[in-house]
């Protein structure tokens, strides 16, 4: 595994930007971080490890991410909350010149208005990042979460 510093820096910045966007609640920017034919999955570790196909969210196109954004903003009634990602330094598993397969542990903290902060969802993302003309994008992001007993609801993107 070798990688140039420029690429490594781009990847760290890309992850940081992802966290920045989903933690700031800039929902409209979120789908911009994905390719058109992306796969985004949020799946309990239990299903993942047992080979059960069900995901908590399974999106197979950027269009579905746009629908999710509409859902968050317009149709899903929910308690507003802050989320805060801490994403570990990714491991780069495989690479070609314009594509990296990375994995990263993450922890998301949820803070409801006027309440204390709690551990919301932790897990590991299995990601494929591709370089396009507008910079890096996920063509695949699969978040396999340990936190199978979800604290009521997950509304915002992990």
């Amino acid at each position, binding site marked *: 595994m070798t990688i140039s510093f420029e690429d490594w820096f781009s990847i760290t910045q890309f992850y940081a930007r992802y966290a920045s966007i989903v933690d700031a609640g800039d929902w409209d920017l979120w789908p911009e971080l994905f390719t058109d034919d992306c796969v985004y999955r949020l799946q*309990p570790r239990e299903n993942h490890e047992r080979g059960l*196909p*069900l995901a908590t969210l399974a999106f197979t196109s950027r*269009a*579905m991410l746009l*629908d999710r954004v509409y859902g968050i903003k317009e*149709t899903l009634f929910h308690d507003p909350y802050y989320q805060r990602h801490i994403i570990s330094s990714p491991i780069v598993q495989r690479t070609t010149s314009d594509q990296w397969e990375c994995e990263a542990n993450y922890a998301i903290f949820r803070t409801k208005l006027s309440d204390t902060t709690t551990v919301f969802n932790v897990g590991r993302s299995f990601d494929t990042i591709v370089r396009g003309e507008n910079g890096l994008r996920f063509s695949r992001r699969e978040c396999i979460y340990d936190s199978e007993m979800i604290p009521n*609801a997950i509304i915002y993107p992990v």
Partner: protein
Amino acid sequence: MTATQLNWEFDGTSRIPFEVYTSEELHRVELDRFFYRRHWCYVGLEAEIPNPGDFVRTVVGERSVIVIRDQAGDVNVVENVCAHRGMQFCRARHGTTTGFVCPYHQWRYNLQGDLRGVPFRAGVKERDETHGGMPEDFANADHGLTRLKVARRGGVVFASFDHDVEPLEEFLGPTILGYFDRLFNGRELTLLGYNRQRIPGNWKLMMENIKDPYHPGLLHTWFVTFGLWRADNKSQLRMDDHFRHAAMISTRGNAGKTGEATSQVSSFKEDMKLHDPSQIDVVPEAWWGGPSVVMLTIFPSIIFQQQVNSVSTRQIQPNGHGSFDFVWTHFGFADDTEEMTARRLRQANLFGPAGYVSADDGEVIEFSQQAFETKASQAIAEMGGREVGDTEHMVTETLIRGMYHYWRTVMEAAE
């Protein structure tokens, strides 16, 4: 606080005192009367334990149980509490085994829960002396695991701590049984996976939610906008004779704008179009026999969902009066095409703890409980009147009134 001390305005069940949601004392009685006696509770699907030795760990009420396929292919349900000093010995959530050993002192049980081995039961011999051992009158037969009565039907497993419980079919009653059999008609089921959520509200609020056809066309934009479920759909509400179980039956009708069901309904989004319509690419299935939605609430523990092509069981696992775990088991049928499996999985985006028409149900339950904890007041469930009865429409809270009618009967009884 006992059930007879509650004040029900109008003496019916259209006005529900908040105490039914907030009293830990009443909750203990509910566990006893609804979960541990005279009722069948859902414990899983046979598809979760296809082979001999397979087991899953789950709960009945708040008690831990293990559901086991034995060598003969029968399904046994035993309580996960060692007969020795009481440990919950089984820690795996599922697995395959030939028997159970409690690690503390290695008491051994077979797949029926019979005690099969007690280390040093006859003592340990040293030279000519025997040290220790269990008393002479100690009989393994008296110290098996607590075994539950089991009923299986259509691939679904129910259990009861009460061996005098009426047969499952009578418990469900003919009407509800019909809808149960529509979904579980003998086909082999396939397991698609689980979703789990902890909802900080009284467990009955989830029953109410699924007995409440008033809300889906109002709270859930996707339902009303895409006509999946709304006030002007053709529908029926059916209950058993005790009013404890219910079926909400509906047939997908209009999408778009059509009068009362959408006018004044702020969740209706006339212009909403999915960027990726595949998420509601509904394909009718022969076994539906018409209705595109049937939601079955089997009191007290389980909800069976058919929402177009998405089928699942939703188990209620109480944690005290103010919280419950809600466990979704999505399944399919062995004869599903690959496309149908993919469709069921895609439509699962609508359900579960992040789903377009379910995530908010957990939220409203949480916010309801928050209010209940702060004051003595009452909920009003008077849509469609104050009486209880089957209807041919959805503009009613009759099923909720029915459930509390049953609740009062059981909870106010002397026993």
